[in-house]
């Protein structure tokens, strides 16, 4: 029986971090099933789904990664998945929409937008922001499959927030962005 672990790692970015971490996991017999990483403000963070032989423990993983020679220590978190769960049990992004926001930078934008999502049981699948010359841009991919309100109500709520906060907010179906940016039309 294999164990399924979800591992998150954060460190000051430098060349070789992914090689070091995956090397340490390989030494434990780990097989990386999925990995996602990003660099923000000079810090790398990555999350991995890894299967291990049944005798490997969370402590073994901590120890193995801690032994990687690095100027700065890795901040680590390890979670074992229950036997009943699989890495590919990812909820399908049905009824997935892209929320885009543009406007002057001000405090509380992410909180306000995510609160509207949370209040209406809209699940945020992905979120990215950028700030250029005091112009704030946010792109949010979210699923409205289990939303407790209609799409029209949700759009209206975002519209009202955008008006109050002087932000331009649009909510469009995810397929539209794929259709206009990808070569293959699904």
């Amino acid at each position, binding site marked *: 029986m294999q164990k399924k672990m979800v591992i998150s790692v954060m460190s000051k970015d430098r060349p070789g971090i992914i090689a070091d971490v995956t090397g340490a996991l390989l030494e434990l017999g780990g097989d990386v099933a999925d990995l996602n990483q990003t660099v923000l403000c000079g810090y790398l963070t990555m999350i991995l789904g890894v299967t291990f032989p049944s005798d490997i423990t969370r402590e073994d993983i901590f120890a193995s990664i801690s032994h990687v020679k690095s100027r700065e220590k890795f901040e680590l978190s390890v979670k074992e998945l229950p036997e009943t769960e699989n890495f590919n049990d990812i909820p399908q992004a049905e009824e997935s929409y892209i929320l*885009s926001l543009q406007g002057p930078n001000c405090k509380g934008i992410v909180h306000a937008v995510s609160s509207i999502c949370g209040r209406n049981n809209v699940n945020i699948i992905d979120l*990215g922001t950028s700030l250029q010359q005091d112009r704030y841009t946010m792109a949010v991919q979210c699923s409205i499959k289990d939303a407790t309100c209609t799409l029209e109500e949700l759009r209206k709520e975002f519209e009202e927030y955008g008006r109050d906060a002087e932000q331009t907010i649009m909510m469009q179906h995810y397929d539209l*962005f794929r259709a206009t940016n990808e070569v293959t039309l699904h």
Partner: protein
Amino acid sequence: MLRSDQILSTVEMIQKENLDVRTVTMGINLLDCHAETVAKTCANIEEKIHTFAGNFVPTCNEMGEKYGIPVVNKRLSVTPIAFVGAGFERDGFVEIAKALDRAATSVNVDILGGFSAQVEKGMTQTDHEFIASIPDALAQTEKICASINIATTKKGINMDALAMMGHTIKAIAEKTADNNGFGAAKFVVFCNQPGDNPFMAGAIHGLEESEAVLNVGVSGPGVIARALDRLIADHPEPGALQFDELAEEIKQTTFRVTRCGELIGRAVSMSLGIEFGVVDLSLAPTPAIGDSVGEIFKILGMDAIGAPGSTAILAMLNDAVKKGGIFASKTVGGLSGAFIPVMEDSLLAEAVGEGSLCLEKLEAMTCVCSVGLDMVPIAGSVDADTISAIIADEMAIGVINAKTTAARLIPVPGKEVGDSVSFGGLFGAAPIMPIRNIGKSSRFIAWGGRMPAPIHSFKN
């Protein structure tokens, strides 16, 4: 997740460039509606349109809401009615037009095309009766559009039908004189008419098509104009941009615009369980500010539309639109080019008023774009033979160049050069276009018969 710049480019296209789907047009075969009597045929037609298109408009609206892109026009096209009403007489065809109008109104579509005949080689007795019915049919209905195909590259031009067209157009205009001859704006004469065109007034459901099909017309020229504006603003230094880079921008924008049309068309098709036909790549202007092909001429360097260089610009625009659109869609069809309808494009109409755009230049421009002399208001006093002769020139361009051309001329009763006419809404407004050499073509039109099909080699 897509990159944020990809997201923002699409958002800009939707938000700032007023992206929409210009039309979803459902084509319905009506051949099996023919019955022994006109009344039974009309009942069959209404029933069939209800069956296929009952949920059409709500579904288009629902998909527009879901994707956040409006479907501006919901239209129907039907089998050319001269085939459906074979054997009927003039009054019978008028009754069929009224039945079509009732059906179109009841399913809430904007307009219905296909009150049509195809007579490029010869005319049957039914065709004669049908053509004779057109003025009354258009005068007594609201949503019906008519078209006649009188020429093809394979068969040449039916000169007998051509001679009838001038008289038919004059009769339509006179029957609708209370509304400045508006009926003529719903009648178009074609060469090489496609059977899957979603745009009006020339939409038909061709005999080669299946039982029912959905064809989509993509967004208008405003999207292209805004994309060009943005590109030029990003490169303000002299010499920073060259013509090929502008062509590339048009191509890429058209790709994205076409994809939106394809996506929504397919969603409507799946929801209704009706086959998806084609995306028509035509850039169809509207009188709305910022939705003009004429504006693209100005952005690309024409200080006056119709000045030397206008034909070259239109050729590039038409070609770039096709290059971008064809890769974006599985099946492209219809007219697929840039339209230059004078009344429906505020800057083209303005150019006519300023005298920079004349009929002859417009005709030259139709050699490199779709679809032809479109929505051109002329003086009500222009004689029928001159109108037929103008159409003959346009048909010849289509026949020889193996492309679709058309003429939608509106002889406005009581108006002369110096006057203007306005139909309002999507049909727009324009000054009366001057016509030179009026009354000098009657001997040519009087020959009748056929202009033979051209040779298909030695193309110089």
